[in-house]
């Protein structure tokens, strides 16, 4: 073996990073490769050469520790200062806090799922470059769960509805929407998981979750949430880049991958879009001060930026996801249909609901000139009149859920916003119901998967949720009736807020 005598030289970032990652791996000879990586061939994706993997970013662990520690130091300094100054009292209004309840019970557990899911694919992929990128995302996601818990911990001390977030996520009816989304991705093979989460969710849709949420937090005086949100987003840029690289890599490796990848993009666009219904409602109804409407956000982040992305991918043969036109047709109704549903079922939700006040209705009418005054305002005015007459409306009947997205069947026909959309399929002698063509397509492609869905309403009727009555189910949810649920107007949160702020109780 010759000894090195070369003159000192500086390795470029790319070459140095390759030495730090993929050069660590070797071709095994004592164990067969498919035994070390048994999941690699499960889904029919053909990878000819993992060495062609383009690293989406080039952070070595020492640089990772350095930058991440700096982010963490800044973030925890703010979290500490927030708690010491009782800064929860600086938010615009206690109604805002309900957006955080939805976030902690619905989104934070998904960060945990992402942490574990990326550990799975970080072990399952045979290429070291892909492994490292996925593993790094896995610990980033753990960071996000934990910083969210630590930030919202302070709100939990002063507001109700946060306390049992962990217990609720695995049980409460609307939380099966986010839970089943991630269960779906994680129970798929590694290539589908990364297409679902890194590409369809992180790259195409996640901006709609974080950017409006965090700008909304800033606008509503919640500096702690802004800080964890933006701090998490700084990792997100790496994750989005991974999502794009994965898609390009699969498509460049073998032409047979195209139809598989396109089918996954279709499926996960629709799954993700339906999940974002909760965000649409949060943006238009739960922020006392609004940044932009759901419709504006969808136009900016999906129609414009998503359009550019898919135009870019057209050279690989990828087209826009199926049913994207429906998402555009729904953009002026999605949030209203969702909020009306939660208002209906406010007795079974772990956050408060309310009717928008006059100025908020004016904002909604301005943002949704074609739909709000014509279709939604009359309904709200009716409910407000009922509430004032002492008959606040709660819907006592459990809703039928979509077999795939698990949202109650409240969406309307793409071309007729006044008719509820119902679709159904038959499988092994049973009928299955769907909210949309998008969800029906997903079921029809993999019925054996979606017949397994743990549908909360079915489970209640089958007696698996603590009993058959609403009080029994709420106890099983660990949802304290009268405190965590019902209208904001009658809530202890509101009473405490008024006392803390020295505001006169307004009735």
């Amino acid at each position, binding site marked *: *073996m*010759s*000894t*090195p*005598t*070369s003159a000192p030289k500086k390795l470029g970032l790319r070459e140095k990073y390759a*030495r*730090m990652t993929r*050069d*660590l791996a*070797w071709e*095994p*000879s004592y*164990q067969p490769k498919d035994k*070390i990586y*048994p*999941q690699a061939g*499960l889904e029919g994706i053909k990878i000819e050469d993992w060495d062609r993997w383009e690293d989406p970013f080039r952070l070595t*662990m*020492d640089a*990772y*520790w*350095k930058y991440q*520690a700096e982010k963490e130091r800044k973030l*925890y300094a703010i979290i500490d200062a927030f708690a010491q100054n*009782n800064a929860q009292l600086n938010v615009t209004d206690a109604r805002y806090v309900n957006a955080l309840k939805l976030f902690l019970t619905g989104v934070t557990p998904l960060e945990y799922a992402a942490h*574990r899911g990326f*550990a799975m694919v*970080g072990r*399952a992929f045979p290429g070291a470059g892909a*492994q490292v990128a996925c*593993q790094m995302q*896995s*610990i980033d996601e*753990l*960071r996000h769960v*934990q*910083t969210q818990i630590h930030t919202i*911990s302070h709100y*939990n*001390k*002063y507001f*109700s509805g946060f*306390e*049992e977030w*962990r217990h609720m996520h*695995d*049980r409460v009816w609307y939380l*099966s929407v986010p*839970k089943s989304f991630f*269960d*779906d991705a*994680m*129970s*798929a*093979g*590694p290539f589908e998981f990364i297409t679902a989460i890194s590409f369809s969710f992180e790259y195409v849709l996640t901006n709609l979750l974080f950017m409006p949420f965090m700008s909304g937090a800033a606008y509503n005086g919640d500096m702690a949430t802004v800080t964890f949100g933006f701090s998490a987003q700084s990792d997100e840029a790496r994750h989005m880049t991974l999502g794009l690289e994965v898609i390009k890599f699969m498509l460049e490796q073998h032409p047979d991958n195209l139809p598989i990848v396109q089918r996954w993009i279709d499926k996960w666009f629709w799954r993700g879009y339906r999940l974002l219904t909760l965000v649409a409602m949060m943006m238009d109804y739960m922020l006392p001060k609004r940044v932009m409407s759901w419709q504006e956000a969808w136009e900016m982040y999906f129609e414009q930026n998503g359009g550019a992305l898919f135009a870019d991918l057209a050279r690989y043969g990828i087209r826009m996801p199926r049913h994207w036109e429906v998402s555009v047709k729904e953009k002026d109704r999605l949030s209203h249909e969702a909020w009306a549903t939660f208002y209906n079922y406010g007795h079974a939700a772990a956050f408060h609901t309310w009717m928008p006040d006059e100025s908020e209705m004016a904002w909604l009418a301005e943002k949704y000139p074609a739909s709000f005054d014509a279709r939604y305002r009359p309904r709200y005015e009716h409910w407000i009149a009922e509430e004032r007459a002492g008959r606040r409306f709660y819907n006592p009947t459990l809703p039928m859920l979509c077999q795939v997205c698990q949202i109650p069947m409240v969406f309307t026909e793409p071309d007729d916003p006044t008719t509820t959309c119902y679709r159904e399929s038959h499988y092994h002698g049973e009928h299955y119901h769907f909210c949309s063509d998008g969800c029906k397509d997903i079921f029809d492609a993999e019925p054996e998967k979606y017949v*397994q869905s*743990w549908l909360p309403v079915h489970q209640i009727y089958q007696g698996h949720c603590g009993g058959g009555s609403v009080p029994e189910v709420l106890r099983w949810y660990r949802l304290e009736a009268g405190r965590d649920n019902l209208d904001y107007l009658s809530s202890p949160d509101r009473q405490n807020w008024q006392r*803390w702020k020295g505001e006169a109780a307004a009735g």
Partner: protein
Amino acid sequence: MQIDIRTTAVTPLRQTFGHVARRIGSGKPASRYQEATFDLQPEVNFHYRPYWDAGHELYDASRTAIVMDDWYACTDPRQYYYGAWTQTRARQQEVMERNFAFVEQRGLPELLDEGWKRRVAALVLPLRHVEYAANLNNTAVAAYGYGAALTQAASFCAMDRLGIAQYLTRIGLLLDSNGSALLDAAKADWLHAAHLQPLRRLCEDLLVVEDWFELLLAQDFVLDGLLYPLVYERIEAEFSREAGTTLALLSGFMDEWYAEHTRWIDQQLKVVAAASAANRERVAGWCRQWSERVRAALLPLASEVFGDGAEAVLDELEAALQARAQKKCGLSWAPEVAA
């Protein structure tokens, strides 16, 4: 309209989340570690069976033969959650940065004997591949293990191992004035040289172990428990005697990391073994089985440095591991009965 808020009126309604309070007692404030750890992993009401493992749920306690009533007994004595972990590593990383700069600025690599460097390439640099396997093995524990307390620590461990593999890579580059011939030589040895083949075989065999707790034990307790003292204490002492402390300076992180790592893994074995006689027996059996194999895999490497004295060195290291198991984990195992 209010100007200031009387803080006495703003009293907390509760101290922490329900699942944390049920573990630590209600009315008590929880630590950041506790809130960031307890009960994070879902345990019930999964929607779909995994396509890649239809015999189990997504998270399933039966992926190991170890049985625990409560996997959250497996806490981390270092109390690492992401923020605590990454800030600790960042401080250590700064020290390492200074050490690398010190060695580079003083041109120390040029002063070292080429034969000595080639021996580092044959004996120390190939460990970057061992660390890569350790990274994958700990990632497997993080992925398929049970309970956030144990799996998050395995995640940190996996990334630590990647970091160590990268420090070893940097040592190779630095000793070679940023060339990669030493690393290439080390990799060729890893693939072909006789003194490393049993160790490579062991690493590949670990990559196919199915029981994640067995894997954790074999990798982080047994293999690390013999390899780290062998390389970073015994072999490194030989290298320092020959050529000064340059190598020791560049591997300072590994010493510090290993001392901390043993505290974590010892606690895991201790808690699991204490939970039931069946667990204890199984853990002891795995320790016995894997220490036999690891010892055999390390012998040719040790022989390169210690010649006929290698057996005696490994006897000492194995005795030290057994003493550690006894003292820290309450575990003992009889050596395999010779056939």
